């Protein structure tokens, strides 16, 4: 069995100072009414205005080369910013995927033209991306997708349908996994490619999938003879699966797998502290101990990513544990504090509880279900 130790990252005084700057900025934004704290804000709290503000503060695309509008800061600096945004429950859903996945994808596989065209706009918080992966009936088996791109003069003709596409009704583009050659049962992951689809192009229809609360975050995206020019293919033809999987590593171990319900935990701890309820606070702090440990782990993985090491196993571990932790927050807090969960309540804790409970089931489903992650991990450890 391979050693499971991860690097211990010590934040430097400069980093701690930077963290406080970000925190103070966000607090003042909240005080000025720019946003309200919500649970699960990275998935559900959408504000193009606020994204633009963050862009102007240099807080999007932070690690990217300056030439593309980035700040050339470290992954740890970006980690700090991400944490601060989530801890305060800021509205970051609009630019989230572009910053987290699409940008890094372009940097790794994109052409110079693509980098020049997309990255500066993303970094300004003015260009939003969705990720087109799942399809009806593909379920967890992404190799079975049927959206196909046919080679035509000067580009590709795309037909098919994507589902569960977060934010497609707001986004400008969708990075779309398509079949560019027919399925080969012996090599099920071959023959797929990634295309950038302009969501305002002819032939694209976006239809809402209402979330169980009635909110609109997810969509079905229909593509009917959508023309995609050659220069909107990312990386190599047929290499889409591999590229997409590399992309997934970025999303498994970040603070958003730990902090989605943090605003509720924070509110609960403050309440119990005020009540001098040692016994209940102790139970809440047991959650904090889990969170602190997970955070150490997540930061360690971020450091490994920075150093270009393989994190497929460890990132999956973080996500599996982290999303379970996010769920545990609501289920524990409700036993410590009497609440009437309600999204319309004027009481902050009632509202945060409602948001955490209602979004809770999604935590362990999105970005790879518990079942899938555990399969990955088990295969990882069995093989070693």
């Amino acid at each position, binding site marked *: 069995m391979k050693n499971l130790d991860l690097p211990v990252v010590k934040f430097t005084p400069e980093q701690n100072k930077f963290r406080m700057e970000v925190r103070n900025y966000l607090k003042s934004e909240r005080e000025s009414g720019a946003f309200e704290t919500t649970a699960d804000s990275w998935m559900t709290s959408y504000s193009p205005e606020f994204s633009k503000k963050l862009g102007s503060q240099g807080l999007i695309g932070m690690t990217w080369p300056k030439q593309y509008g980035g700040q050339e800061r470290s992954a740890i600096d970006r980690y700090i910013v991400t944490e601060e945004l989530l801890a305060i429950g800021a509205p970051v859903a609009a630019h989230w995927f572009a910053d987290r996945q699409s940008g890094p994808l372009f940097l790794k596989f994109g052409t110079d033209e693509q980098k020049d065209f997309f990255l500066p706009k993303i970094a300004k918080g003015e260009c939003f991306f969705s990720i087109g992966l*799942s399809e009806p*009936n593909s*379920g*967890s*088996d992404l190799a079975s997708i049927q959206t196909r791109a046919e080679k035509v003069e000067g580009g590709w003709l795309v037909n098919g349908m994507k589902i*569960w596409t977060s934010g497609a009704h707001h986004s400008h583009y969708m990075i779309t996994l398509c079949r560019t050659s027919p399925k080969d049962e012996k090599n099920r992951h071959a023959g797929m490619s990634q295309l950038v689809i302009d969501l305002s192009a002819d032939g694209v229809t976006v239809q809402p*999938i*209402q*979330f*169980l*609360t*009635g909110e609109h975050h*997810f969509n079905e995206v229909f593509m009917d003879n959508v023309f995609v020019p050659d220069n909107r293919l990312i990386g190599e033809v047929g290499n889409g699966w591999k590229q997409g999987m590399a992309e997934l590593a970025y999303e498994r171990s970040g603070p958003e797998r730990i902090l989605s319900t943090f605003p509720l935990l924070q509110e609960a701890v403050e309440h119990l502290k005020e009540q001098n309820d040692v016994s209940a606070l102790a139970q809440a702090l047991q959650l904090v101990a889990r969170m602190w440990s997970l955070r150490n782990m997540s930061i360690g993985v971020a450091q490994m990513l920075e150093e270009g090491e393989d994190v497929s196993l460890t990132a999956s571990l973080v996500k599996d544990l982290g999303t379970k932790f996010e*769920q545990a927050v609501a*289920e524990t807090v*409700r*036993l*410590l504090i*009497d*609440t*009437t*969960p*309600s*999204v*319309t*309540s004027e009481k902050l804790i009632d509202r945060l509880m*409602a948001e955490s*409970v*209602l979004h*809770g*089931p*999604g935590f*362990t*489903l999105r970005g790879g*279900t*518990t*079942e899938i992650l555990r399969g990955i991990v088990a295969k990882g450890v069995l093989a070693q």
Partner: protein
Amino acid sequence: MSEMQEFIVDTTNKILKKHVAKELIDASEQGEWSGNLWDVLVESGLVSVGIDEDFGGTGGDSTDAFAILRLAGKYAAPVPIFETIIAGWLLAEQKVETTYEPTSFILDLDNDLTGDEFTLKQVPWGRHVTQVVYIGKINNQYKLAVLPTEKAQVENNQNIAGEPLDNLRFKGLNLEELTQFEVERDSISEKVLNYAVLGKLAMMAGAMEQVLDLSVFYANERQQFGRSIGRFQAVQHHLAALASETAVVLAALNYAIVAFEEGSMKEELSLAKMKISEAAGTVAGISHQLHGAIGMTHEHQLHQVTRRLWAWREDFGNEAHWAKKLAKAYIEDNELSLWDFITNEKRGNVHAGSTI
């Protein structure tokens, strides 16, 4: 189950199956009043079961009513049947004839209504009921009173299930002229909680039965990697856990109902509430994990029951609340060892009447 009760269950089941479609629940959550459904329930006498015919009720006993509420929970019937039945019982005990109007009730012992402007907070179904049975203080005296909502201003609010939980601002109501009765704080509180908790537990048990049904259906239906997902070990574990929790919840509920019916109920209420509220979260969580993404959509029916489970488990205090209450009583009033306490059966020779 008595023949009478089988008939009631059968009738209720048919009515709800016919009249409660997903769209009806959606519309109700959007604020519409399920008038047709309500009328059918009224006509069938189902909103006044457990009330003697002398007081305008349909007869039958509380066990019949709990069986109806279990089905109401199963179908997530979007009407104040729970509130109306229990308000009806409370009024019948004061010899007030039942009206068949949609009625809510609220137990708020810290509230004290005075003057001619006051607010009732978080009244279930407040916007749709014509009267509220209020149990709390009026001019510093504990009362059970009937407040007509005609003149109340409604401030819409809702619970996590989208059920109305409205603030009612009353203005110009003459408190003196209300139908009202003096009550004793502790005994009325216990009585209301007995009715309300048992009724909600029955609804939660019904909702869990529905969750299990939906899950079984989905596991049989849904294909992945070329076979129905019910053949995957992880899905089987989920199903087994759902079946287990549902069965044990029914065992808790049924014993509590029998104890209530026999007039011997004591800690059974706490224990049942503690177990069933705990199970609600487990069941909702597992069913969503099993259903995957589809269960997170508004289009799918699952959330209509899981959101109710999440709301109802908190109603009248969640399991931790009742556990603390029981712990206090256990320390203060109980001389028995734990095993004596658990096996302490005063039942079997008690036969209190149960029609209210």
